[in-house]
């Protein structure tokens, strides 16, 4: 008798809906009228050059940055009015970690598991990111790749329904990348929407189903990776062309 695994996917498959998003810092417009969607069970990569508005967009989606105008709906709710129960379903991995150098791996992961209160076992999270042998180390004693995985562990503490990952593989070695890809695959397999911002187009090509390319704060491409790569082209060539 064969076993059938059923992934529970919400009826409305849209996990993130961004409409006419504008973000200004004083006179500088970081994001101008960006619109796109990201779905449950898929990886959406936000791509673009430095200063394209990727991190600003991601931080607005995480509720960490106020949008100047436009609407942002995360898990069906306006991010500006999101309640704690929904906030607890959002995993976040910041570009720079957001971890103090003196913070120890296990106590901080356990603390985040308690803050999210989603019944996640901290030891299990450490095993997932391969840091069980570094449980008592401080952030400052970890290698670059281990720091990235520590930061990812804090996002996993939410057992997220949507995860925003900013440059998750930056500074990570090959084994570490494989591990992070595996974690992302596990997340999407259980219906989580993964939104990642990255400069690494090869990585995006490997893990993402959907790509949104930002250039000077505007969405210049929004399609599946498969469509973008039609005609044997690499994603890098496509992005290079539209962001020239």
């Amino acid at each position, binding site marked *: 008798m064969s076993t059938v695994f059923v992934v529970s996917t919400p009826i409305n498959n849209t996990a993130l809906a961004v409409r006419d998003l504008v973000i200004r810092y004083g006179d500088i417009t970081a994001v101008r009228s960006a619109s796109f969607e990201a779905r449950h069970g898929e990886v959406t990569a936000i791509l673009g050059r430095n200063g394209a508005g990727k991190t600003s967009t991601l931080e607005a989606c*995480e*509720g*960490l940055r106020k949008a100047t105008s436009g609407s942002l709906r995360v898990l069906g709710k306006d991010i500006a009015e999101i309640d*704690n129960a929904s*906030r*607890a379903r*959002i995993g*976040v991995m*910041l570009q*720079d*970690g*957001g*971890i*103090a*150098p*003196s913070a120890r791996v296990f*106590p901080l992961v356990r*603390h*985040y598991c*308690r*803050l*999210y*209160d989603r019944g996640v076992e901290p030891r299990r999270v450490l095993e997932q990111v391969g840091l069980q042998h570094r449980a008592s180390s401080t952030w400052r004693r970890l290698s670059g790749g281990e720091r990235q995985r520590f930061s990812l562990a*804090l996002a996993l503490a*939410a057992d997220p329904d949507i995860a925003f990952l900013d440059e998750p593989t930056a500074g990570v070695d090959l084994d570490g990348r494989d591990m992070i890809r595996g974690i992302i695959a596990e997340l999407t397999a259980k219906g989580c929407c993964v939104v990642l911002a990255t400069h690494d187009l090869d990585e995006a090509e490997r893990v993402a189903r959907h790509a949104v390319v930002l250039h000077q704060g505007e969405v210049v491409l929004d399609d599946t990776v498969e469509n973008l790569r039609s005609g044997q082209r690499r994603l890098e060539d496509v992005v290079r062309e539209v962001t020239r």
Partner: protein
Amino acid sequence: MKLVVQQTRMELTTLLRNYEQLLLILVIPVGILVFFGNVQVLPDSVSLSRLVSSVLTLSIMSTAMVSTGIATGFERSYHVLKRLGATPLGRERLIWAKAMSVAIVEVAQIAVLLVIASIMGWSPGVVTWWKLIVAIVLGTSAFAGIGLTLAGRLRAEANLAAQNGLYLALLAVGGIIVPIDELPDAMALIARILPSGALAEAMHTSLGGATSDAWFSYASGSGVWLDLLGWAIVAPIIASRLFRFDG
């Protein structure tokens, strides 16, 4: 409430593991109390009871302003505050957790200092408890406001230097250890406006000590409380306007 308690526990654990902070909030106030309580280098007007009030003031300043300010400044620069802001804890509960950890540390500090003072022969006069609690609350609010204003605007290293510099300046000429009426006129005038001298005097009178002439002539006794109240209201308002969670 559960999340606030959880975060408060984390704040206290972090504090206990930080030796510089422990030096600031406990070792220095205890050292000053024991040293100046035994070595006669301060003016005669500084009795043991005035020294106790001064050291309690110093401990409140250490915890509410310097310790909280330096820790928060570094957390801001490492984006720790930003990261916590993306959890269900949120910014409002984070502020409550910080306030609770400051309150717990202050209670512990005051208890330790009063036990040591008692061993040194200090006994309080007629303590007006409600005044003592009001003084501690107002002082904490004033110094936390000043500390967070600096922490919320300056780069972490500049904030560290500013907090320590301000601490030493207030310790020396803020009317804490050296009484205001022993300071040169111009310095005394400034010290009367600062929250440090006002808190030391409010603590002293709350613990049953006699009112200082310097403060009495300043505004008929109530000047101390008005001064402290002003700082307790204005400093947190300025902090809330200027503080940036993301550095």
